[in-house]
């Protein structure tokens, strides 16, 4: 054994260096995991302050506090980096000393081999082979054991057999469909579940008989341009700003605000959302309801489903939405399907798509990309040519998709400009407006590109630019933003009459019984006879500004003004008690 002082000194050096390395390495590992578990980005203190700031964005002391906290975290982070760096150099030095000392000591201790004869080499070789076989068998067993443990301990919820896969991938049969969950058509027709009614036509079959008066009005706590929707005894509207986006539920009889619920903490949605133009705002898209839930979407792409008691069922972030004037297309519902036309891009398509979600779960049933830039029209769902079709408008394409799987049925290149008016289905035609250019009637029974074959008629007279048309029987009515109301024949597009209402109009007209309701931007509510003869049935003035379209349900007309929600009814033309 080498007992020279040099050897002993080297050995001690190696031991000390080794212990030093273990100590430094241990501290570094501890620091690493400590830093990993205490992520400053998730600091409860910082998150709480940010929440406060979201509610009160102009609070400067709060902003300062957040900045100081952020600075503190960053300084801590830099300090830890410096510590890591120092630790690494210490580790390097310790390792260097360890390697040098150990190698030198090993060299000093090295002795020349003195091989001896092996008379029993053959026997040893046999024993060695035997031991190797057994150890190999042990390795084999260990590997097999590991595979079985991994395989049998698997907790996959996906099917294990081809048959099970087949069953999962097949569409559910009629017997398997959750019938109890699906609202029936009559329920939709009895309510006003989406923008311009259950079918998006803007019409209701019942009549008020007389010129309605205001039954109640209720203050709307947040701005928005979305139209009211009604289901049973509840009226829903959405409102909000870049800081907070909410849904409001009112009692349809009294106008009392039953609840308001913020759509917040949407997974993936950034805390700070881009500014949207004031004319559009954050809450331009009209909500939708299916009798079980209500759905709301906002300009930033936050989408939420709420129960009728205001509890959140699910939320989803579909943004960021690239729309130069702010996203405004309303939601559409049909059965348990929730449809979102999410067209994006300033001059060319940038991720435009049509999405179908299952209302109850929010899961994507299908999604189709669309070759169009941003649009503002709301899709309608129609039963035509033996199919349930979704009609969508955007520059330049009118495209029809099947409701079941989103496959394209037909398309026509007919539109130009910024497409705001929504389509309607009346008299067997899809009526659509190319803003300021043409009003057209399209047959919805084609396939492929029907640009040259599908148009039944088109007219360039008094074409609206914002408000959607409305049809009844063989007549179609439009109103321009300048206030010119026009009646066309639904079969040939020929103008029957026109009149100037002397009011600016943003809201789409609606027909209640035989009354054409036109709501002026500055509060003039004009009712015309929805017939071949021009006849003004009444005119009243409301004390508000109106952009949203009327909702007709439960014998009442609901209007959203800039400041108030109004309920109009035929009982007495007087203001009801204020909630």
């Amino acid at each position, binding site marked *: 054994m080498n007992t020279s002082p040099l050897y002993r000194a080297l050995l001690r050096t190696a031991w000390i260096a080794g212990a030093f390395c273990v100590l430094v390495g241990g501290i570094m590992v501890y620091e690493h995991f400590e830093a990993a578990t205490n992520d400053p980005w998730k600091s409860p203190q910082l998150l709480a302050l940010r929440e406060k700031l979201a509610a009160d964005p102009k609070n400067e002391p709060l902003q300062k506090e957040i900045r100081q906290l952020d600075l503190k975290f960053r300084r801590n982070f830099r300090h830890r980096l410096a510590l890591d760096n120092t630790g*690494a150099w210490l580790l390097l030095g310790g390792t*260097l000393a360890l390697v040098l000392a*150990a190698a030198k000591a090993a060299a000093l201790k090295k002795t020349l081999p003195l091989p001896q004869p092996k008379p029993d080499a053959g026997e040893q070789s046999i024993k060695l082979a035997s*031991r190797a076989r057994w150890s*190999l068998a042990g*390795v084999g067993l260990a590997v097999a054991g590991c595979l079985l443990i991994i395989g049998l301990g698997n907790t996959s919820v996906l099917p294990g057999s081809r048959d099970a896969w087949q069953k999962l991938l097949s569409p559910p049969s009629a017997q398997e469909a959750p019938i109890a969950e699906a609202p029936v058509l009559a329920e939709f027709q009895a309510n006003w579940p989406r923008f311009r009614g259950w079918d998006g036509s803007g019409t209701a079959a019942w009549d008020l008989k007389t010129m309605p008066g205001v039954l109640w009005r209720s203050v709307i706590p947040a701005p928005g341009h979305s139209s009211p929707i009604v289901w049973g005894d509840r009226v829903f509207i959405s409102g909000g700003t870049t800081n907070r986006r909410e849904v409001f539920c009112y009692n349809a009889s009294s106008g009392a605000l039953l609840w308001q619920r913020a759509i917040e903490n949407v997974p993936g949605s950034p805390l700070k959302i881009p500014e949207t133009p004031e004319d559009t705002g954050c809450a331009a898209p009209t909500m939708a309801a299916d009798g079980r839930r209500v759905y709301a979407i906002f300009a930033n792409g936050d989408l939420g489903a709420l129960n009728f008691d205001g509890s959140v069922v699910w939320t989803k972030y579909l943004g960021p939405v690239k729309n130069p004037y702010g996203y405004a297309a309303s939601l559409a519902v049909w059965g348990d399907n929730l449809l979102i036309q999410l067209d994006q891009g300033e001059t060319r398509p940038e991720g435009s798509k049509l999405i179908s979600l299952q209302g109850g779960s929010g*899961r994507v049933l299908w999604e189709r990309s669309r070759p169009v830039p941003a649009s503002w029209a709301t899709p309608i769902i129609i039963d035509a040519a033996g199919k349930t079709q979704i009609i969508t408008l955007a520059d330049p394409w009118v495209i029809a998709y099947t409701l079941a799987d989103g496959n394209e049925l037909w398309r026509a290149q007919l539109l130009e400009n910024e497409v705001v008016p929504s389509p309607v289905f009346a008299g067997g035609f899809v009526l659509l407006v190319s803003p300021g250019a043409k009003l057209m009637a399209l047959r919805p029974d084609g396939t492929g590109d029907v640009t040259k074959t599908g148009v039944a008629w088109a007219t360039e007279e008094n074409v609206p630019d914002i408000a959607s048309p409305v049809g009844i029987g063989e007549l179609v009515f439009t109103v321009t933003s300048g206030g010119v109301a026009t009646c066309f024949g639904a079969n040939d597009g020929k103008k029957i009459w026109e009149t100037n209402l002397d009011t600016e109009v943003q809201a789409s007209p609606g027909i209640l019984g035989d009354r054409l309701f036109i709501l002026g931007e500055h509060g003039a509510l004009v009712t015309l006879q929805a017939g071949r003869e021009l006849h003004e049935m009444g005119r009243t003035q409301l004390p508000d500004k109106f952009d949203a379209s009327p909702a007709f349900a439960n014998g009442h007309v609901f209007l959203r003004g800039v400041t108030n929600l109004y309920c109009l009814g035929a009982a007495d033309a007087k203001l009801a008690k204020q909630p």
Partner: protein
Amino acid sequence: MLRRLKFVGALGVMLLLALMVCAEQRFPPPDFENGYRLPSASTPAARQLWLQYADAGVLLAALGISVWLIYKKRSRRGLFWLSLFSLAYFGFYRKGCICPIGSPQNIVYGLFNPDYVVPATVLVFCFAPLVVALFAGRAFCAGVCPQGALQDLVLIKPVAVPLWLEQALSVIPYLFLGAGLIYAGTGTGFVICRYDPFVPFFRLSGGVFILTAGAAFLMAGMFVGRPYCRFLCPYGGLLRLASLVSKWRVRVTPDFCTQCRLCEQSCPFGAMREPAPSGTNPKWLWAERKRLGWLLALLPVLVAAGMWAGSKLSPAAAQLHPAVALAERYTRQQSHPVQYGLMTPESLSLQRAAEDPKAVLTAAADLRHRFDLACWLFGGWIGLVIGLKLVALSVRPGRTDFEPDRGACLACARCFAACPNERVRLGLMPAAGDPAPS
């Protein structure tokens, strides 16, 4: 001199470790309110074609030089310098990619995915060392492999691994190879590259797990010669097979073996084999033949058992594929809807994927079927490897001299200098009968 260079190499490794510790930390970007936009990350352009051909040329040249140094010059020093060059070029300059170790995955991925065309340079990197091994053994391992060079630098005091353990562990590279190829074939990923413990050192970046594994291999490498090469490297497994039938083989002595046993201790990789008597004791002969017969009969049973075990592995193995994992999460979410509070990156990915569920499930179903077949084959492969190894351990080789094991020898040339005949050839000592130097 050589030892000092080893220390320098070890120092370099530790320095890289230190740099990587810094690279581990991340901090979220601040919320800028002054309109500043963080520059978007961009993908670097692909390496120019002529540079790729240059890499292939360098590989071929290095292989040629390695063969020349092993068989013609018989120079350990030359191989040391060559391995240093390879470490610098293929390791730190090329950052460990492309390297022959991972290249079989590209080939298999190309075979099962028609959209992917295997680049010519990948073919060169995959097959050139194998072709060389068919003629000259593991010349690639000797001086061209950067991973091997790194481990060689830190080898200070080699400890012999018992031969029985060495033999048992030598099947692991084939299992790793099988796993790597099924994951490549199914498009899951290149796990051999992902779990290469030395590539993070070359790239100065890596996760905690793989850095720790790399550091562990290097520390073990101070006492156990090239642990990764011997017990894990899947490409080493292929080279081992090719070397078994190589035209030329490394010989310790340039002349004849005096059976002095001096070379026995010189191999740090446990590749030196002693002479085995050709004759067999008659009392063992029957038992040995019977054992061989049983093991040959056991071979198909092991393969079948492996296939059965592999078939059980399929659902778990498939979960590593992103598409299957997405389908898994989707299905779980359907059965147990969860509103995520704080999103994990995976949950966020699922939320944002917003893919057609049917498309996701269809893709997952297709992948699961592919995994069923792949895992079935993988299990059979495991049974075959273990069965063949058992058979090989039951066949006694005939050897008259001390010589390196054809498959296990890394051709590092360390044993040459231990042979007295080699020393005589080099003029380092007088031949028997020569007058002793005064």
